[in-house]
């Protein structure tokens, strides 16, 4: 196995060795349930065989809580406790460290995202069949959510690479991802060029198309670019230790 995958495996496992993975998964499902069935009248009021609400609330929860919590420690904690020195002086490339840690954290987030498949499966397939659901938007919605997770975790990793404090990493990630989400709401209030700009960078606006069953290559490329760019900057931030 390549060093990158070994690091990813260790990182992924370490979430489950501490309570963090269980807390994040349990509380996220509880919150998702509340949002899905109760908020704004809930699912039943809608009276439609659609899980669009799931796609709206999950990325919001990921932005504001899950991704900041999962990524805050990735590099900040290693740097503070000194384990980074131990890790990097093993025969691994800096890029192995960055990508390995990224994959480990992304793994946990994807476990969470893919577990929400329970909603469409349980409600529209077995044991309940509440109506004929349109499979297209569900598939594209999930594709969007996976792409969104890739980008959000990369942003979180980048911020964790810039600081030694988990708390600082958490708050900045919370703020940045939150802002990138809320820009979508702001855009609808603003007008003109500002709205275009805000819509362009907002994760929410980008996801909108996926919810409607539309896979636009521009959106796919946007999320992938954010991912790659963040990882590259994180790599540079890690490399900076050599010269600073």
């Amino acid at each position, binding site marked *: 196995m390549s060093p990158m995958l070994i690091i990813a495996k260790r990182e992924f496992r370490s979430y489950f060795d501490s309570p963090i993975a269980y807390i994040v998964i349990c509380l996220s499902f509880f919150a998702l349930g509340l949002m899905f069935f109760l908020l704004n009248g809930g699912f039943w009021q809608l009276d439609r065989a659609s899980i669009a609400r799931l796609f709206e609330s999950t990325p919001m929860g990921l932005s504001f809580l899950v991704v900041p919590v999962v990524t805050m420690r990735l590099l900040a904690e290693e740097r503070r406790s000194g384990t980074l*020195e*131990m890790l990097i002086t093993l025969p691994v490339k800096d890029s192995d460290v960055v990508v390995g840690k990224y994959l480990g954290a992304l793994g946990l987030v994807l476990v969470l995202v893919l577990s929400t498949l329970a909603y469409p499966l349980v409600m529209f397939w077995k044991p309940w069949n509440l109506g004929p659901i349109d499979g297209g938007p569900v598939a594209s919605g999930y594709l969007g959510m996976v792409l969104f997770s890739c980008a959000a975790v990369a942003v979180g990793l980048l911020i964790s690479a810039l600081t030694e404090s988990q708390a600082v990493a958490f708050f900045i990630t919370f703020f940045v991802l939150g802002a990138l989400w809320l820009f979508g709401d702001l855009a609808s209030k603003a007008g003109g060029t500002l709205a275009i700009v805000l819509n362009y960078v907002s994760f929410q606006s980008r996801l909108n198309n996926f919810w409607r069953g539309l896979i636009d290559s521009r959106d796919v490329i946007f999320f992938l670019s954010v991912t790659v760019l963040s990882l590259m900057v994180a790599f540079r931030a890690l490399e900076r230790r050599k010269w*600073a």
Partner: protein
Amino acid sequence: MATDVMIQANGLTKRFGVVRALDKVNFEVKRGEVVGFLGPNGAGKSTTMRILTCFISPSTGSATVNSHDVFDNPLEVRRSIGYLPQRAPLYTDMTVWEYLKFAAEIRGLDEASFKKRLKKVVEVCGLAQSLGKDISTLSHGYRQRVGLGQALIHDPPILILDEPTSDLDPNEKAEVLRYIKEIGKDRTILLSTHNLAEVEEACARAIIVSKGRVVADGPLDEIRGKTGRVRYVVTVDEQRAEAGNKPPAAAQAQEALQRLSGVKTVRELPTDEKAHKFELSGAQDSDIRAEIYRLAVAKGWTLLELRRDAQSLDAVFRDLTRGDEKLDRGANWTAADADDEEDTSNADEDEESDDDEDEEEEVDAKSKGKS
């Protein structure tokens, strides 16, 4: 043909901002040597080790480890070494076995050779009882052993250990030193510490660094002789005396000793006995024990102890690195033997602190420029 020089540092200089942590450091470590890397805190020991392990890069200069350059071939360098950073930072959420397995996997050991090495490492480091324990529950001494274990797991030709004995209790220290001697029989080891007794215990050669410079490098005996002095310890009873003489007062005895020819300095040492204890220093290659004895007889002192030894490494170390201490401790520095130097050192400090302020301003200006 493999060369015999395992570690070579060529003019390593490292600047952190305006601070010069290392200044043109040169040294070589040959195959099979166990070398103590000594220096006060902040002298640049860890910085050097981090450069050798490719964790950071030197500002100028170069280094090769096992004939691989730290710039061109960091992965090969890291494959050749086992490294224990200061304070053995480990992943506390893993068990000892998991951690060693992780290190072995990254180093590309297959299952069979891992098992074989694990057996050996467990034996050498005394980890048999703790393999299944979480690292977070281990004492610092045991963490240090695990750190040593992960450094040994791939049977590296070179070991770089940064303060492997700090924070250990005396038993654990002795144990760790025993391991180091044990494994040092067929490996090259560079070991940093500020504890000199350890170097004398485990190493044949020492490199002393101070303020980022190498101030001494050679076999221990050579370093001991470096200041060119021999040390005598003389103890005289303060209550009894021979042949009806009065026991001497401390000041009297000190003065009499001082007047002996060949004595450079006399210093009173603290003692629990009812006696005056002095430390004398004389020139290398001289022996004034006979003179001291005759003086005692002439004065009728009861001589309780008289011994000559080459200057201890401790004293050499202090001699070689003392200048730094003075600057670091600032205006409040008042060691007993500094009285005569106090004025000049104060002047130095004033200058120094002015410099510091300037530097700080520079740094501020720079960081503003950046943001």
